[in-house]
């Protein structure tokens, strides 16, 4: 068998494992959301689902939820546009999932003559691809609100449209400063160039080069995932939102999309601003300590450590986003628009100006 064939097969296996990992993490986040909010609020949280008397800290609630969603009647309103109504959750979840294809979750895995890239799609416009797919995912929300033929879900769809439009702008522009610094839209190259060091000790991570860009990106990212400080489209307390007419697993898919987008924002934050799979001090040949001692490791092990570092970064950001979700109250609608158009948008443009000026002065 040719080397290329084996490499592609191994890459396929690795990418499949990554996708499964992402999906499992999305399921696990439903548990994390319940338990973390409980621990933050001095409660115990859901712990009643049990199998043969075992409760496992309520982990079985994930299974219970899935069974409930799948066995419930999936109701279609009589006046709904049936085709679009059924298409909307699929669009939503599909375009949230496909973005993960471009996320590099590890350095090239090298053993013997084989080189396996740990990334689904390694191409030059990876960053643009992710943002394009994220924008298309909005269609799922809009279609859901529009095709249900319910005033409440229509309102939710409208709110989602204007909110996502406002924050997509700020998010896209906040990234440009980063692209100017590293000079690439290729996510793999972005991560590789974050392995350099400033003044020999500070990792050249996006966060240290673009702190303002990171804050704008994170705020816009939370808005993009439509979770609490920005949950106007869902608005559980007044309009329930664009999925008010959905039930069963179709509703479950929208729910899943929220969590997938949380993971996606965590992945992007890690890849763009926190060095992806880079670990400070870890080079291709092993750990370099500050006093010049080198602990040599095989490149295989270094890559695996990198993958775990990336998983750790994702887990941290998921925890961080959850904490924000359970700390802040929701914005009022005018505050939301004010923040998006009058603060984040000009700030992100100012960020580009400052970055450009600094780059020009340094060169």
């Amino acid at each position, binding site marked *: 068998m040719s080397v290329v064939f084996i490499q592609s097969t191994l890459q396929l296996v690795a990418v499949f494992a990554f996708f499964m990992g992402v999906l499992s993490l999305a399921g696990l986040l439903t548990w994390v959301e319940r338990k973390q909010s409980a621990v*933050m609020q001095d409660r115990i949280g859901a712990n009643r689902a049990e199998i043969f008397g075992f409760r496992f800290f309520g982990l079985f609630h994930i299974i219970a939820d899935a069974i409930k969603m799948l066995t419930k009647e999936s109701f279609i309103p009589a006046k709904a546009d049936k085709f679009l109504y059924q298409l909307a959750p699929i669009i939503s979840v599909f375009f949230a999932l496909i973005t993960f294809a471009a996320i590099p979750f590890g350095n090239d895995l090298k053993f013997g003559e084989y080189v396996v890239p740990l990334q689904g799609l390694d191409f030059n416009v990876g960053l643009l691809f992710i943002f394009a797919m994220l924008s298309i995912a909005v269609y799922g929300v809009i279609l859901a609100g529009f095709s249900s033929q319910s005033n409440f879900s229509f309102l939710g769809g409208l709110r989602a449209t204007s909110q996502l439009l406002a924050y997509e702008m700020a998010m896209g522009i906040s990234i440009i400063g980063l692209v100017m610094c590293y000079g690439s839209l290729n996510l793999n190259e972005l991560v590789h160039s974050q392995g350099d060091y400033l003044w020999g000790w500070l990792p050249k991570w996006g966060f240290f080069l673009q702190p303002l860009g990171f804050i704008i990106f994170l705020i816009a990212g939370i808005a993009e995932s439509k979770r609490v400080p920005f949950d106007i489209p869902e608005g559980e307390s007044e309009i329930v939102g664009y999925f008010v007419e959905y039930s069963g697993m179709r509703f479950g898919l929208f729910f899943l999309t929220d969590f997938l987008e949380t993971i996606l924002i965590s992945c992007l934050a890690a890849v763009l601003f926190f060095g992806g799979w880079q670990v400070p001090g870890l080079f291709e040949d092993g750990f370099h300590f500050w006093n010049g001692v080198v602990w040599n490791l095989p490149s295989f092990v270094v890559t695996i450590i990198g993958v775990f570092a990336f998983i750790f970064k994702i887990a941290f950001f998921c925890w961080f986003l959850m904490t924000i979700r359970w700390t802040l109250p929701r914005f009022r609608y005018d505050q939301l628009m004010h923040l998006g158009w009058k603060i984040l948008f000009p700030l992100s443009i100012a960020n580009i100006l400052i970055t450009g000026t600094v780059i020009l002065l340094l060169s």
Partner: protein
Amino acid sequence: MATIQVERKKMNLLERIYLPEIIRGFRITTFHFFRNLLFHLFRAFGFKNFKGAVTFQYPEEQRPLSDRLRTRHRLMQREDGSPRCVACMMCETVCPAKCIYIEAAEHPDPNIEKIPASFDIDLGKCVYCGFCVEACPEDAIRMDTKILDIASLTRGGLYYTMEELLHPEQHGAKIEEARNKVLPPK
């Protein structure tokens, strides 16, 4: 029209930037998160005096109830087991929900004027105001049984006769019976 002028505090610059305020809130919730996580961990290793949550796990773990809490009614008994009630109708009269139904009868003892032939309370109507307890001149009705679970699938299951009110210790059996009863077909 009378208006009240509310003095609103002007926000200073740090508060208007809002990020420092978020970090302040974040600090509180994160502190609670890690403290409770640590306490849960201690409990898991057997240090029971650390409580990471204020939750009572209800059916297994009952909350301590205050002695003043108004709970399911009971009728007091005389030493011979007959009800202390003299069927004066005070409670039935004062009851704002009109959920007490008393039928009076002659008492065999000439020193006692009357005795209730039946004394029913429809808990489906009762508002737990406790007026009946206050109105009673004989201290014959009390609301101190600390029984909270009166739920039933039928209206009849909420209807308590004199026999049931005289023996609150048999409440569990009644609830069990009510739970096992199948709803009548519509």
